[in-house]
């Protein structure tokens, strides 16, 4: 049941990452990290969570940036807002899937508050930035009492809403690898109205040489408890020339590979019916066929 009143909690405002990690360790399991709060505060109102402590990030410096480092790739700080992806020309140029995800994401108000990291840490199979990041590949940098560790995005989500992050770890940065001159990527989502969570989203990142696909990562959302890579379908694409016929086969394969359910946003049947269609479209969008 939802309420107009926030449940009671203590608000922690660490001034450094080590202090934050120490607080997480001290109140192990009782702290929720509060980034933009666009998920976390809603969950508090609807009593989905009732944490004893909320730990906010506002006292932490140096986590606000979206930086492209030539030769390394994109670094997204834990406090960087979704809107910053749109303000950064490198994102638009080199990571179109992520840019497109940010473009369709929610509304200007939410984009100004929501962090990219919060989207990944929330662990929703509908996360739009998350969907793009899974296709682009990358790592989540976690800071814990024993120091820093990097978790591959492919391994990061373990179940609905559950991630590899341990209770005493703070996620500090997202890293997305440098694209090559032949990298192409794109993102598409389907929603009931513009401001909505996806009923289906898909992102693709391909290495294309003379219309031949050398490597590909396809991620799809809302077709299972976590965002998934369509690995069977990817295999059918690698080493092949992209043609209408091949796209049809990929579409059929995608339908086989997913496990959607009925929910408020759509039905299992519909998701299966359109998964192949939007996969085809996202590949065409990435390679600029349309």
């Amino acid at each position, binding site marked *: 049941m939802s309420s107009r009143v926030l449940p009671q909690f203590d608000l922690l405002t660490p001034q450094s990452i080590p202090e934050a990690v120490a607080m997480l360790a001290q109140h192990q399991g009782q702290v929720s990290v509060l980034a933009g709060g666009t998920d976390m505060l809603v969950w508090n109102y609807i009593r989905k969570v009732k944490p004893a402590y909320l730990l906010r990030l506002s006292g932490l410096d140096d986590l606000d940036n979206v930086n492209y480092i030539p030769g390394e790739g994109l670094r997204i700080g834990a406090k960087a807002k979704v809107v910053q992806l749109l303000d950064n020309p490198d994102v638009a140029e080199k990571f179109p899937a992520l840019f497109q995800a940010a473009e369709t994401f929610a509304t200007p108000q939410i984009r100004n508050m929501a962090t990219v990291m919060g989207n990944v840490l929330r662990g929703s199979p509908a996360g739009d930035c998350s969907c793009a990041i899974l296709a682009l590949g990358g790592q989540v940098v976690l800071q814990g009492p024993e120091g820093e560790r990097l978790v591959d995005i492919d391994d990061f989500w373990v179940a609905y809403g559950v991630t590899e992050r341990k209770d005493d770890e703070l996620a500090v940065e997202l890293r997305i690898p440098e694209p090559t001159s032949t990298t192409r990527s794109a993102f598409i989502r*389907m929603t009931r109205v513009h401001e909505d969570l996806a009923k289906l989203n898909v992102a693709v990142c391909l290495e294309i040489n003379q219309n031949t696909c050398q490597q590909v990562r396809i991620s799809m959302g809302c077709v299972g408890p976590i965002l998934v890579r369509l690995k069977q379908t990817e295999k059918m694409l690698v080493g092949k020339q992209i043609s209408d016929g091949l796209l049809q086969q990929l579409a059929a394969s995608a339908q086989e590979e997913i496990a959607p359910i009925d929910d*408020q946003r759509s039905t299992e049947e519909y998701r299966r019916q*359109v998964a192949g269609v939007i996969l085809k479209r996202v590949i065409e969008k990435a390679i600029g066929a349309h």
Partner: protein
Amino acid sequence: MSEKTYVGKSIPKLDAREKACGQAVYAADIQLPGMLYGKIVRCWDHAHAKVLKLDLSAAAKVPGVIKVLGPEDVTQKRYNTGVLDVMVPEEVGQLLGDIEDQRIFTDHVRHQGDAICGIIAESEEIAEIAAGKVKVLYEPLPVYLSAEESSRPDAFQFDERKPGNRAFQLPEQMFPGNAYGWGDVDVEMAKADLIVEETFYLPKVKQCQMEPHAYVAHYDQTGRLNCWTSTQMPKCVQPKLARLFEMPISRINLVSTTIGGGFGARLGMVFEPETCAMALAVPGRPVKVQSSREEDWVASESRHPGKYWVKLGVRKDGTPVAMDAHFTTNAGAYFTHASGVAFTAGSWMTGLYKFGSIRYKGDTYYTNQAPSGAFRGYGNPQTNFALEQIVDRACSELNIDPVEWRKKWHKGVGDDGWCMGVPYSSCALDECLERGAEAIGWEEKRARYASQSGTKRRGVGVGVMTHTSGAMPMLLEHTTCTVKMNEDTSVVITLSCSDLGQGAHTVLKQIAADTLCIPMDEIHIHVNMDSAGFDIGSHASRTTYVGGGAVIKACEDVKRQLIERASIRLGVPEQALEIKDQQVVSRNDPEKILSVKDICRSGVYNFTNPETGETNGVPGQIQGYASHFPAHNSPPFGACFSEVEIDIETGEVKVLELVIAHDIGRAINPMAVEGQLEGGAQQALGMVLTEETSYDKVGLCRNNGFTDYKMFGAADMPKFTTILVEQPDPVAPFGMKSVGEAGPVNPVGATANAISHALGITFTEAPITPERVLQALQDQKVA
């Protein structure tokens, strides 16, 4: 009428700035000394259950809790949140079978969100904690979510006065055969060359007014019960509260707050009964009750969902010889508007076309959904979905252009109106159809989209409608207005018409300014229920038409008094005087002139010369007054054209453009009229494409919030063209007609028709979601 300074101008809403800057004071913003907080404890886990045991002891012990109130601790009187009882004579109410079946706190939960007890505490937080400690033992009862289920003979009976759970059907004594219309439908139907028949289903859609319901009530030291509320109809809620709490009307004082959107959600009483009951329990201390959006959703009224069966018989040339219709609507858990909506839903059909014969049956059944009630259009959008689609089906089978058919068969001047017995005074629907068709490129697009291939298919559709301006003759129709002239000629208008956000007060000031020839910013509107006279509220598309009519009359009364006094002072007969540029002047002798200011000032500052005994003018502050009962309801008509594009691989429908040509008579404020049409279309598009309150099998609401109830947002809106067709209505003040309730009506039919034009498939169930479209495409092998 002469050239107007304000009427006809797009003057920005006067409260826009205040609202945009967060300065407007809503009920939720009110803080009074010693204020307590009330929480209505609702049943969230059952849609139908008996309360076997209610244990409030633990809740009462929470520190800071002042009082807990169970069903027995408040009045045992029943009530009906609707207000029909105030607006029709008692005999009519009895004939219609209107009943009072609601309780403040109940031990028989009839829908999720029914109120079971109340908590009054020092803070909202404490009330919330205490609410969590209320222990309830429920006995679940069978849950019915549709009329089909609740009308079964073995179903649980909601109310012994309503056998079979039928809350309403057209009463035999008023409508023999439980139907209204004209002609012999069975005989005429037999003469048809083509019969088209279909059952349509309409969803339960919510008003989604911006401001969730909130109140403050205070049973003060003088023994008066004061209630701060954003109700749309304060003067009707006042007697209802008086009756419920068995207090004289004089001891009920309603204070109107800024209203954050109405759309029918604040028609009649909402949570005033619960709030006032709490205030009565703690005399001397104000109590504030605020609801969350989720609570507002399950506990307040929505549009009536239902099953709309229509059968239309036409001749080969399109002549509509017979229309047979039966609408069965879902009242939800309580009676509320069970009779009103079922009655009017048919009138929007009898009022629109010249059917050779027509028979309309309307009935309403109880279910365990949240109660249905008033929502902008009052049945008209639902009727539009069924009626406009069945007409198009007939046109399509006979190869008749839908625009031409409508031009030929719509009702017009002199024809019997939507409420039979009141003929139409004007009708500009032909011009609406012509200009709308031209603006959208009707002929060219109809032809071009007739044969398409590819994954994107386009279609254009038309929908027409008529509505009312005011509640006459169905309901009491009355507004009282006082216009006080201050000594500096500034003006205070006192009335109880609410401004729902549609700009009513802006428009009423425009009307007053031009009638009195006084600048708008020297006119103030004072809404105070103690000083203002009667008014039936802001609904039925009436505030500009009827409220404006009252303002004009009261201003005319001011002018009459000004002339009367000038006549005395100038020694010129009244007939020879006129008011021009704030002067009363003789038509025959321009030297005989007296300023309005002089008359007003000397009326207030009236001195007697001690030597001569003479005064410096006619004494008395001028006040104009009107108690206005409009003679007509000058119905507006309108034509909407919709163009859609459908992705046949995904079933997604994109509305590309809407053209709305509206027969406004005369637009007092064109920008406000456009705003009403655009806002209405936003609600219509939601109803036809995306919105539906849905329930799980046990009757718990699945989407009582904006996460999963999707309205059209700004980014979803199509290109929009509004055409205001101004053919002044001969009997209306300034020639004006209404627009507010018209907004959400015909974009429904037009868009449904556009979809069927694109795909050749009629969608009988709204909302027409991509899931439904894709399914239908596959069934018909289009995709």
